[in-house]
């Protein structure tokens, strides 16, 4: 078990965005988190990666309690994520974004930079190698030096997944990686995600609305509604769960 969340709650001035949620993410799996808008899915991710502090509850990663740690420390421990609104460094180029994503695997500091010491040079070589590898993996090699602003929506989504990937994480949290994309592009991203867990062996936790994609990709699904977990199980089980159907999936899935 990689990540465990126990009785996690987040309250904002009286409003319970997340209430008493407990779940586990197991190594090597693809776990999908679904639920209507406002169910607390992104809040859950924000709590896990440190951007929000829990009101109560625990978050354990590889046995260590990480609740309340600063995001960069959590990232260093091996949890990477993407954001619903594609977050990239849009003043910089594609390669720069990837290089920054790899920064946490570098050891050099200020003085090494000033004197171009040996470990600075080694870090630079390793970064270059990793950037190129990731570029190939996500299929953006031709756009390497382009500014991020010149990329299409789908390419930007791929790049943000690449930035998460290059940090060599144990878990990637993908927050609506196909949000706003057309069918073709959605399939591309789905293939990329499959590549990630099959080829790179990284555990994935995914927030998605596109049910077909979720059923196709996920080993396990967790359903949130109004900040609480209402169901957990395999895609089969979830699609038959009456509460879930009522809250979210809609009548057409009953067939």
């Amino acid at each position, binding site marked *: 078990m990689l990540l465990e969340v126990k009785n996690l709650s987040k309250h904002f001035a009286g409003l319970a965005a997340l209430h008493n949620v407990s779940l586990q993410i197991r190594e090597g799996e693809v776990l999908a988190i679904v639920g209507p808008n406002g169910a607390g899915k992104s809040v859950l991710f*924000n709590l896990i990666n440190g*951007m*929000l*502090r829990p009101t109560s509850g625990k978050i354990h990663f590889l046995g260590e309690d990480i609740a309340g740690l600063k995001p960069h420390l959590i990232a260093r421990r091996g949890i990477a994520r993407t954001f619903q609104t594609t977050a990239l460094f849009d003043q910089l180029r594609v390669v720069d974004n990837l290089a920054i994503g790899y920064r946490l695997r570098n050891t050099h500091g200020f003085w090494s930079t000033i004197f171009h010491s040996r470990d600075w040079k080694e870090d630079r070589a390793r970064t270059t190698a990793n950037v190129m590898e990731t570029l190939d993996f996500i299929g953006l090699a031709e756009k390497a030096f382009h500014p991020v602003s010149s990329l299409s929506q789908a390419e930007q989504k791929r790049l943000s997944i690449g930035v998460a990937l290059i940090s060599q994480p144990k878990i990637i949290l993908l927050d609506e990686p196909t949000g706003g994309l057309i069918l073709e592009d959605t399939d591309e991203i789905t293939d990329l995600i499959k590549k990630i867990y099959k080829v790179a062996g990284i555990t994935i936790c995914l927030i998605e609305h596109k049910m077909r994609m979720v059923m196709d990709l996920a080993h396990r699904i967790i359903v949130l509604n109004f900040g609480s977990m209402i169901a957990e199980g395999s895609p089969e089980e979830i699609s038959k769960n009456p509460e879930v159907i009522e809250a979210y999936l809609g009548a057409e899935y009953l067939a």
Partner: protein
Amino acid sequence: MALFLQQVFNGIMLGSTYAIVALGLTLVFGILHIPNFAHGHLYMLGAYIGFFLMTLYGFGFWTALIASMIILALVGMLVERIVYRPLQNRPVINSFISAVGALMILETGVIVLWGPQGRRIPNPYPGIVDLLGITMTWQRLLVILVAIVLIILLQIFIKKTTVGTTIEAVAQNREGAMLVGINVNWVFSLTFAISTATAAAAACLVAPIFMISPTMGALLGMKAFVIVILGGLGSIPGAILGGYILGLLEAIGGGYLSAAYKDVYAFGALILILSIRPTGLFGREVS
């Protein structure tokens, strides 16, 4: 004991000024999220316009004050339109730089028009009242009285009138407000106008007591920011309370400790509080 009470009185008077200026600033900074560094300089301009109207055109004190408020309201709207509105969707650091440009223009403009030396405004209420061993000039009492009236008026305006709630609505959710049909640009202009008009009022009230000079606004503006940060962005009670606390601190500290360093207290307090609570005394966590 008499000395202490005297300082308390002075502190309350000073605090009244700070409270009004901080109030105007918290409206703009806390609600519109515009760091109007030029606020202190607009205050200074208010004093100069009042002075100008009284000495050159022979306006009475109250007429000059009201005229100054109106003129500054217009200037405030102009500043919002030219200096801040074009930058509303850009990172806030751009607004800082623009604000710096604005205050450079204001300060140097005043120097060019009226000279760098300080000026005296004739005191319209020269009488003195002796109470409990404290010497109170009528002018100082007036500052306190008018300040309290203005503060109460502003509170009522923001909380009870439709316009006031509109301003709060825009502060909470700009897009939502637009969708409901609120003219957001107009709200921005109005808030700025209120902010600068009240600052002008405070400036004209205080002008006969102290000299006016082109640099009088700079320090005051900075202190207003400190008050707003410590009292909580957008919190009107925080701005008022903070203003009075700072006024008292400076008067008592200046009287008993060191006059030269009295301006440093505000800054020292800021650094101290930020070290303990990075979100300010009453600030909320930003996610």
